[in-house]
Structure formats: structure tokens, C-alpha cells
């Protein structure tokens, strides 16, 4: 990592003979995130996954204006049309509503309920983990032992137990999923922070008179946020599956709102009549979930984090 330093000092000296070093210095000058972006762009699998995610997000944002038909308006005469129907391109559901419109509008809630818990847990979990890792001592013991208790529950069980106790609903689902991911992110944040708290640059910051809060905000956060972020992105896929799973069980979104997990549940009755249509919402969950997983894997190797 000394390449940029030498290149810089050479440039200051005005020494032109350093020209052979130039390409290396050029790459290094991108900075860390520039590097990551550069590697990511050259990873075809991660790029394809990333593009898919962007498309789904675009559909989710634009869906109220671009759905071909009214996603709430059903027709008892046109129930369970097959895929490839002239009017209903992806068929119609058990109440005769257009599948493609409902899948498009459903992406809003499914994405929102899958991504939000991870985002909130990322903020809370990083906070707890960095605090525990940096302060150490009793604070660490108390925080991490409390977190151990939540690790004693398999995540699916914890999510369902909390949702079941709190009652059905979008807000409660997000709360219970957040509770599932906070301990997991906090544990990663704690171990990364513990790994760097004895480094020289932390001591240097202390000696320069920086307060504990400033050191945590600048030196610690800057060095640990990358690995925590990558770990968190790997949770989005699980979160999507769990969030839709809660709706599938009837603990999340309520009808008639379209959400992929809920659609899958209500279409279960149709598996003998029109199996392909019944399986479509699950396919949507699967595609988004696998895209997030592949993108997260790509991000991990681009950032050269070993797991």
C-alpha cells in the first residue's frame, strides 16, 4: 500500500524518471471505493445481479404508474387464466386479478419489508457492536452476553415468535425482523472492532487528544464499516425470504395488498388448476433473493474480505 506514497513524493520532487510507476499510481489513486467499484464492474455475475436489483427497484418505484391493468380489480369470470393469455400476460389470480400488475406492485412491499429491517439493524447493530468492541471490559461482557441469548434462537423461530406475539402487520413484521438481525450484525461489528482497537493509528489518535467519541466516529467507523456493510448486504436475501415467509404465514401484509409471500399463500389453493401461475410470486422472491446474494458475494470479493 506504499505505492501511492512513493508515487506522490516522486511527483513532488518533479522527477520524471518515475514514469514506469505511473500506471500503478494511477490505479491506487482511485482510492479504496474506486478500487472496489472497478473490480465489481469486471465481475459479470455480480454486475448481472446488480442490474437485476436495479430493475426490480425501478419497477417497485414506478409500479403505480406502469402496471398494465388495475392490480386490485378482479373478475370472477376471468379467474386463474394461464400464463400467455391475450389480456393477462402472466395469467390472473384466484380472484381474477391481473398477475403481472400484482407482481409489479407487490415488489414494493416485498422489497420494503425485506430491506428495511436490515437497514435499521445495520445502524443499531453496528452501534452496539462498535461500542462493545471499542470500550471492551464490562460493557462488552454485558452487551455480548445479551446478544448470545438471541443467538440461542434459530432466526426463523425468533422472527415468527416475535411476530406471533406482537400480532400480524407490516410494522410488527419489520420490528421482529430487525430484532433478528441486530444481534447478528452486532456480533460481526464487535469482532471487527476488537480486531482493530489495538492498532497504532488508534493510539496515535488518542495521543493527539481526540475524544473517545471522535475516535469511534472517525478512526474506528472508517475501518470497520466496510466488512459490516458487506455482511449486512448478505442478510438482505435472508430478510426477503423471511419477510415474505411471514406474509405467507399470514403474519405480515394483509389482503388485498399485493405482496409476493401473501400472493403465494392465497394462490396455494390454485396449484391443481393453474400451477404455473401459483408458483410465480415465489419465483419473484427467489430471483430477487439470489440477486442480492450474488451481488453481496461479488462485493465481498471486490473488497477482499475473507469470511
Amino acid at each position, binding site marked *: 500500500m506504499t505505492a501511492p506514497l512513493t508515487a506522490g513524493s516522486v511527483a513532488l520532487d518533479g522527477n520524471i524518471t518515475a514514469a514506469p510507476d505511473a500506471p500503478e499510481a494511477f490505479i491506487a489513486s482511485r482510492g479504496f471505493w474506486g478500487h472496489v467499484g472497478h473490480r465489481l464492474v469486471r465481475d459479470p455475475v455480480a454486475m448481472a445481479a446488480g442490474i437485476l436489483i436495479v430493475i426490480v427497484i425501478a419497477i417497485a418505484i414506478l409500479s403505480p404508474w406502469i402496471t398494465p391493468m388495475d392490480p386490485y380489480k378482479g373478475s370472477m369470470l376471468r379467474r386463474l387464466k394461464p400464463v400467455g393469455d391475450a389480456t393477462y400476460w402472466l395469467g390472473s389470480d384466484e380472484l381474477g386479478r391481473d398477475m403481472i400488475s400484482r407482481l409489479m406492485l407487490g415488489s414494493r412491499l416485498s422489497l420494503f419489508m425485506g430491506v428495511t429491517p436490515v437497514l435499521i439493524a445495520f445502524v443499531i447493530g453496528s452501534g452496539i457492536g462498535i461500542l462493545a468492541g471499542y470500550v471492551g471490559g464490562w460493557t462488552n461482557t454485558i452487551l455480548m452476553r445479551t446478544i448470545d441469548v438471541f443467538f440461542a*434462537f434459530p432466526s*426463523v423461530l425468533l422472527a415468527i*415468535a416475535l411476530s406471533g406475539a406482537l*400480532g400480524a402487520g407490516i410494522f410488527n413484521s419489520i420490528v421482529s425482523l430487525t430484532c433478528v438481525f441486530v444481534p447478528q450484525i452486532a456480533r460481526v461489528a464487535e469482532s471487527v472492532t476488537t480486531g482493530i482497537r489495538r492498532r497504532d493509528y488508534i493510539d496515535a489518535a488518542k495521543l493527539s487528544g481526540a475524544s473517545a467519541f471522535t475516535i469511534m466516529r472517525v478512526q474506528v467507523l472508517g475501518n470497520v464499516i466496510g466488512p459490516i456493510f458487506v455482511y449486512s448486504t448478505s442478510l438482505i436475501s*435472508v430478510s426477503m425470504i423471511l419477510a415474505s415467509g411471514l406474509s*405467507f404465514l399470514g403474519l405480515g401484509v394483509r389482503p388485498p395488498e399485493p405482496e409476493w409471500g401473501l400472493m403465494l399463500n392465497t394462490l*396455494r389453493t390454485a396449484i391443481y388448476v393453474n*400451477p404455473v401461475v*401459483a408458483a410465480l410470486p415465489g419465483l419473484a422472491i427467489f430471483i430477487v433473493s439470489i440477486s442480492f446474494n450474488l451481488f453481496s458475494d461479488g462485493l465481498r470479493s471486490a473488497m477482499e474480505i475473507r469470511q
Partner: protein
Amino acid sequence: MLLYILKRLVTVTPVAFGVSIVCFLLVHLAPGDPLSAVLPADATQQTIDEMRAAYGFDKPLPIQYAIWLWHVLHGDLGVSIATGRPVAQEVGRAVINSLILASVATLIGFTFGVFFGFVAGYRRNSILDRVASALSVFGVSVPHYWLGMVLVIVFSATLGWLPPTGAGPDGSGNWRPDFDHLRYIILPAVTMAVIPMGIIARTVRALVADILSQDFVEALRAKGLSEFGVFKHVVRNAAPTALAIMGLQLGYLLGGSILIETVFAWPGTGFLLNAAIFQRDLPLLQGSILVLAMFFVALNLIVDVMQTALDPRIERA
């Protein structure tokens, strides 16, 4: 070794204690009175008070917890509000069914996961490695409740080879290892097996690749050991970690089976939990979650001890 087990027991006790607190508080997270679901809307205040006293809901929380814990430690998980039967009895029956399903699934997942992991680890960057990697990504990304539905669509609804739901032909809730019951366990077990298969394949691949790159493998080959002999060494080095992951996966499957059990109407804990949630049967909810979580804690402990016993490289600190 005995000392190590004792030490681990000591560290696990506070966790178990914490788990019991979480399970206890679950009931009090719920909006409204835990009894509101069973009492008729026109119940008199006297009836409500009597019921509250009968279930102990009139006392302060710490005392309620102490009483509850005392009963739990004596094997009494309370009485189901919906059925009036003891929770321990209901949970016990369901746990056995869940355990059967989860064990079969873990076994299938372990066998295929280890196979793919070894093939991929030995032939890094080959087509087989790509296939194995794709399968493991599939395993962790697929919504398993959807996979269950797809399997039902293909093998029950379309081909008619296997029954779509239930645990046995008589519709009874007890699974037995005979041919008729075997047909019922195939679809849920295969669905469930996909997750551990992906995770085990991924881990074993990394393990095998790491072991093969170590110096001692070079030394074994240099002294002229056959490839099968080297393979035996690789297996011995990979076994503790692979078995530990298998144990943990069993715990995850047991706790996470609710979605799959719902899809297949499998009469296990997931099915019971589902019923408890929708009938707002809070003692049953509390009891089944406590049993599952404690099972998971115990399994973690056993896995830890087994791994230490199997792998001399781990210090018994």
C-alpha cells in the same frame, strides 16, 4: 475432558436463563390481556378477575416469572388455553415429529452437501465446481416454502407420485418408519434438505481446498502415499468442522421448520406454533418456543463438546 464439559455447562447456564426470560416476556409483548382471546366479549368483571387469578396474571411480572420458571423446571409448561391439555404433552408429541423430519432432512443435506463440497474442493474451478457453487447459492437463496410448493405441484399435482400433505395415510399425527409413512416424508424432507446442503457444500469446499493447499498434503504425496490415502487424511481433517455444521443445521431446521411444516401440513412443532399464534394460545406459544430454543442451546453445547473431543487442535480453554 470432563472439566471442559463442566466449564461449558457453566457458560451455557446464563444463556439458558436469558432464553427463559425472553420466552416469558413474549407473552407480555402481545397487545391486550393474554386471556382476551378465550374470554367471551360479555364476560363479567368477576369472571375476568377469577380467570386472571387462576392463570396468575394478577401478580407482578418478576413473581409471575419466578412461579413460571419453577413450574418449567418441574416439567410443567402450563395448560393450553385453546385445548385445555397440558402444553408439555402437546409439545412433546410435536417435537418428535419435527425431529424425525429435521433429522432425515439433515441427513440428506449432509450427504449431498459433503459430496458436492468434496468434488468442488478437489476440482477447483472445473465445471463440477461451478455446478456445486451454483447449487449452494440456490440452496441459501431459494424461499424454501416456495420450493415445497413447486415440488408438490410437480410430484403430487402433476405426476401424482407422492402425497402432497400430512404425515401418514391414516391422517394420524404420528409418523412411523414403514413404507406408507415413508412416502409422506420424502417431499418435506427434500425441501428442507436444500438449505443445509448448500451451506455444507460451501463450507466443505472451502475446507477441502484449504487442507489440500497445506504442506502436509504435499509431504504425504512426496512420500508416495496413494491418492486414496491422501483422501483419508483430508477426510479426517475436514470431519470435525463438517460434523459441527451438520449439528448446528439440525438445530436450525428444527427451529425453522414452521414454514415447511405449514406447506406440507406436517404435524410437528411448526404446525403447533402456527396454531398457537392464530388461536392466540399464548401458553402453547411460549412453551413450544422455549422447548425449541432450549433444544437448540443443548445441541450447540453437544456440538461444541463433540468437536473438541474429535479435534485435538482445539484447545480446551
